[in-house]
């Protein structure tokens, strides 16, 4: 490409806007063990509420479900633009293990590790899995479906039961609450107050900064935010199930 042409194109791309140099950082610590190159895995247990054996999902017009079958999941993504250019860089999932909530998170530190992350997540699901999410039917599940398709992998979410709590929460509280975001639901129903929470909108920049050689600090805060989302998801589900009994 001739240099004048390059200059012309740069001018039109308004490089000034995009050229935010990321300072390289020595804080490059992403927690967890490396399952394969670029794929980090963390696991933690939370003693957080006690689930009944059978959970009444009638509030979402679903059959009662054994708590063993639930997989709460939430992704952190590179943006909200949609389409084939948006990806998940973190997938978190929580399930009940002997009465305790197990929180597992997969984080990629390179683009190339995406396929390994998708494969690892697929192994967490089986035929009986019932997915639990907050707006996952419209956001996380289609986004992952696109990623599995692009990686030429079968989509493990297809055909699974899926309890999306956003809609039942809206049905119950849309007239009482200022909004029905998960953060509102957890505060109203579970009394959760987050400290030093990284707003979800800053997650893409946190990962991009790390990817470009910058600090991992905010990426760790994304993981903490994601873990709290998963705990709240489990809590909101239990709350709604008891609501049904009352």
């Amino acid at each position, binding site marked *: 490409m001739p240099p004048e042409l390059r200059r012309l194109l740069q001018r039109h791309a308004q*490089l000034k806007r995009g*050229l935010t140099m990321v300072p390289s950082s020595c804080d490059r610590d992403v927690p967890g063990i490396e399952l394969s190159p670029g794929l980090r895995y963390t696991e933690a247990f939370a003693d957080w509420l006690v689930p009944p054996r059978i959970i009444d999902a009638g509030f979402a017009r679903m059959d009662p479900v054994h708590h063993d079958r639930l997989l709460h999941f939430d992704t952190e993504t590179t943006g909200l633009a*949609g*389409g*084939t*250019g948006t990806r998940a860089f973190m997938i978190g999932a929580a399930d009940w293990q002997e009465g305790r909530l197990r929180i597992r998170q997969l984080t990629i530190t390179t*683009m*190339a590790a995406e396929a390994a992350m998708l494969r690892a997540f697929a192994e967490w699901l089986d035929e009986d899995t019932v997915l639990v999410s907050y707006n996952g039917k419209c956001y996380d599940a289609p986004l992952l479906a696109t990623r599995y398709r692009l990686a030429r992998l079968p989509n493990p979410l297809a055909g699974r039961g899926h309890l999306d709590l956003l809609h039942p929460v809206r049905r119950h509280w849309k007239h009482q609450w200022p909004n029905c975001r998960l953060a509102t639901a957890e505060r109203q129903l579970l009394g959760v107050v987050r400290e030093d929470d990284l707003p979800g909108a800053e997650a893409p920049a946190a990962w991009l900064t790390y990817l470009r050689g910058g600090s991992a600090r905010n990426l760790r805060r994304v993981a903490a935010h994601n873990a709290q989302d998963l705990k709240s998801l489990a809590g909101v589900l239990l709350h709604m199930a008891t609501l049904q009994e009352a």
Partner: protein
Amino acid sequence: MNALPDRYASDDLVLGEPGDGRNLARRLSKRYAARITGAFVVPGREGRFAPLPDDLPDALAGALRARGIDQLYSHQAEAWQATRAGAHVAIVTPTASGKSLCYTLPVVAAAMQDHAKALYLFPTKALAQDQVAELLELNQAGALGVKAFTFDGDTPGDARQAIRLHGDIVVSNPDMLHQGILPHHTKWAQFFENLRYVVIDEVHTYRGVFGSHVANVIRRLKRVCAFYGVNPQFILCSATIGNPQEHAEALIEDAVTAITESGAPTGDKHVLLWNPPVVNPDLGLRASARSQTNRIARLAIKSGMKTLVFAQSRSMVEVLTKYLKDVFDHDPRKRPRIRAYRGGYLPKERRAAERAMREGSIDGIVSTSALELGVDIGSLDAVVLNGYPGSVAATWQRFGRAGRRQQSALGVLVASSDPLDQYLVRHPEFFQGATPEHARIQPDQPLILLDHIRCAAFELPFTGDEMFGTEVATPWLDLLAEEGVLHREGDRWEWIADSYPAIAVSLRSVADGNFVVVDRTDGRQTIIAEVDYSAAAVTLYEGAIHMVQSLPYQVEKLDWEGRKAYVTRTNADYYTDAIDYTKLKVLDCFDSSHAGCGHAHHGEVHVVRRVPGYKKIRFYSHENIGYGPVNLPDQELHTTAVWWQLPQMVLEAAFEQRQQALDGFLGAACALHIVATVAVMAEARDLQKAVGSGDGAWFASTDLRGRGQLRGSDGQPAALAPGAPFTPTVYLYDAFPGGIGHSEPLFRRREDLLAQSVSLIERCDCRAGCPACVGPVLAADESAPSLPSASPDGLDATTPKALALRVLALLVAL
């Protein structure tokens, strides 16, 4: 005198027996011999037929027979064989020759036999809807079980999923493919995995900037298809252009089999070139084209001929419709016989006009170029063009609307006062003998290419030394990585930004959202029309009379930001006509060099189009009954340009008067524009020319007399004080937001361009100048006697041609 009743349109010219183009042409020629500057007959031809192919599925053959199709035209049979043999095919036959069956047969057969899918692309939503209606009728006639849907911006969200999964034939447009389908291709996985045919109709409309974009959308489509392991066959259709096969091959970047011989029968077509009579010999003023068009259309309709009138602007459509309605639709108890058809009507209204025309309940329709494309309106007997449509190809496409039936048809081109029109009617041989224009695209235009590599990288990551079209993508990807939208890891470039790039790329350049026209008469709030962004400034200013189906509405309030115009019904006896002009300012000069006694430059410029006011013009008499001011934001374009200047001293030495130098610059601009357009293979409308002062103090345009007229920065005609600085400048600029990258190659070839312009003018056969070299000139200039050589400094040296050559000579290197 224009207001007098038309006593010449006497009814003795009206034909007794209905609808015969030959007879009406003969009578018109006899009565108005002086107005007819050219008459020729395009002979009809016998139909050539072929039996329905043996390998056509029985049910499909049955459906065809049920719809009255027992045999094919020869080109339809050829298309069947070529597509079945696996070739990409381009079908180039006239309007109304049954083109759509050429692709319907292979597509429907493959859907029935192999569940193969097809994607159809049409340039407009209206054509897509026509096509689906036709497919549904065929499907019903044979219970074929083939599902066809339109998929465009109007498709409701809840229907989209079903269409992606179950549509056998999805009918869309390039814009939707670009913004709605490719960036979501994973949702269409099933469709792409089974995609066998891509049908692109009306490919002659994909040229210039739009065509260059579409070629890149096709590159992206092929790239996504490759991801799903398919390599679909392309079937392209085009109206007559000079280079159909070359153009089709340029669009899909692959070899195509061209089918160019139509087997459809046609009747003779009688074509007349019509120049309105001189009404004021002293001033050389002619009667208006409008009055002549009106008269010819009236005669044709009274003779029982289904007639289509093409007008150049939306307001002219409304004016002509009103005049014809005044004659044919004055009795409100009867069904209307005349209708208008143009962009800006709501789809429902356009469908109704099309249906009424097909059913034969309408006798006359007045349209803009909207009907030039293959909208099905049934048989027509006469086509009248109110003014030259700007290209030979478009003229024939419009005439092609008449003569569907095997009886002779009439086509009349009525010249307007526009100098180009006047040139054409004075030279019928040029019109008759010229090959139609070539369609050109430049898919590797750097800014367009970069936009589409950006979109392509969003759709699928680039790897290794991947090619995009004919270019290795790597340097472009590096540029995008610098910008921060891509992230490179090893030999892969992945999309990383939180944005959806296709939204920011419009295939049709400036499309900043349509305006809706809201009727507030008697407290109503009804949307009665839509106007696109580029036309809003000249049709929806406050005070404008906006005609809808020839009913006048007055614009009371224009909400520019909200894209809304509020109107009320009015009984005004006038219409309005916007005054608009263009000026240009240099922002940054990238490079300069000597050019003869002057300089050449290229750099960034700011182009402003302004509408300072409007004229009120009374119906029928067309007298100007007043002006109104317009207060609207300027239409601005930030782009690149190349320009040439001569110092005042040089000009003063070379020209006796400033007017001559100005005329010389305008003529040189015209020649440079022609040569440059060819040099960079641009569409004439994508590259524009302008003449103005080097410091932006004034600009010049050609007035009605074909002479340069100075205008000040306020747009008012102005005269320079004798002492004022005078540095006329000729600009060639990209009519494309952000520039299209023409100016740099033009600057590099600046000497060549000047030499070619000189040669273009010198070799032109005209005496004083013509649209083919320095621009249209007055008949008076053209017919002035050539002076003997005894007068070396005489009149000849001041013809527009000679003045342009003088300017160019000063710019050519010494």
